[in-house]
């Protein structure tokens, strides 16, 4: 059947994010888990909920394996998504003969709440890494994968004598642009940090005094 012609980019925009497709299993599924242990190591709480709120920075980061880091085969500038959204330089200047890009992920916990926006840059009230009042001691972030699922987890320990309530969680990312320091000949880098997702817990997760918790974010690209 011949349809009416498309006259503008606006017409196309209405087509590229259709809202009338039949319900299907989503391509991407994500959820958050928390396991809480008391000071004797007994599991005292298990919390699980869907993760719903990815930011534009997540979208920009995942654009790298799709559109690459150059605008084209003969254009030595980074794509606009990387410069305009992530704030990366269009090229690394004055630092040796080449440059490359890698990134880290982490998990940030918080004790506040805020409305979601895809341009959010941080948690409402981040819980600092430490042993002071209201602080949690974050261990090294662990990342693994199985097929198209990626798991990110972190263990936190409450070394204080008071319980700490966790109400918000974010997946964070740090992009690292590596280059050679022209003066030393050694590896050098610039870093750029982002909030990749933001969720509030449906019920707070309470880490008891001298207890610990493991928070895990699972990203599944089911394929």
């Amino acid at each position: 059947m011949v349809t009416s012609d498309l006259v503008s980019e606006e017409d196309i925009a209405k087509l590229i994010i259709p809202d009338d497709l039949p319900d299907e299993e989503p391509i991407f599924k994500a959820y958050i888990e928390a396991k809480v242990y008391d000071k004797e190591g007994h599991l005292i709480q298990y919390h699980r909920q869907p993760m719903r709120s990815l930011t534009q920075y997540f979208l920009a980061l995942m654009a790298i394996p799709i559109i690459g880091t150059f605008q084209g085969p003969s254009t030595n500038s980074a794509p606009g998504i990387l410069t305009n959204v992530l704030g990366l330089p269009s090229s690394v200047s004055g630092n040796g003969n080449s440059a490359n890009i890698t990134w880290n992920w982490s998990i940030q916990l918080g004790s506040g709440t805020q409305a979601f926006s895809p341009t959010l840059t941080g948690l409402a009230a981040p819980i600092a890494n430490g042993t002071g009042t209201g602080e949690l001691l974050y261990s090294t972030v662990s990342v693994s994968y199985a097929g198209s699922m990626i798991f990110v987890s972190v263990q936190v320990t409450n070394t204080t004598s008071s319980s700490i309530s966790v109400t918000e969680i974010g997946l964070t990312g740090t992009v690292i642009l590596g280059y050679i320091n022209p003066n030393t000949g050694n590896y050098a880098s610039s870093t750029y940090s982002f909030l990749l997702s933001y969720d509030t817990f449906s019920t707070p997760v309470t880490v008891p005094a001298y207890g610990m918790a493991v928070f895990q974010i699972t990203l599944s690209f089911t394929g």
Partner: protein
Amino acid sequence: MVGRGIEDIDIKMPRDAYDTGKHMPTFNVYLTAIVRDSEGRVVKIHRQRSHSPTANFIGLMLPLQYFINTNSSYTLTNTGGSTTSYQPNTTIQAYDISYPNAEQNFQTYLAMIQVGSGQQSNPYSANSLAAPIANGSGTGQLAYGQPSIPSTITVSGSEAYFTISQTFNNNSGSTVTITEVGIILNLWLNSLYISGSIVENNNFGNVLVWYDVLSSSISVPNGGSVTIYYTFTVNP
């Protein structure tokens, strides 16, 4: 004593974590194709959800901690079937994804949206299209335009998205049918180590990062064209 459960987070996706009837998924990809006849009139609009990042995409998405903490590499496979062990690091000799530089450049870029006339049942493990349609004007071929990438991400309320697209013209003399579509990244891995005056690098070539079998085939009439749009969106 730490409870046993700490080492035993169940990796199986809980069914109630994505009850699709109750809330929208946080991330979606849509594939749209607009087919025009030889006079430029739209003769078909094809829309479907895109489903299939490949294993190459997953490997390229993994953060640095995975490679450093596990001292592991990830096997990437290009469209020619060659493999490489991808193991980025923040050291001078690690082979990472290239980034623009003022002096020597090794371009990693969107090579093309590729279309094909075959299909395969396991998109995750696909390294190439089953039957790529060649770029040209011969029988069964399509003339590939340049891929278009956006300059930014569009944000509207809680939604954010970007779209890539590419147009294919049919100058073959007869109808050409498309049944599969993929996104091809030209990947250049380079270290920062300089041997002589040359940076150590690995032009790994074309890598399939996304693949879809169309829910129904698309016929591009002779003299006509098709434009493929991939839209990646969060919180749609």
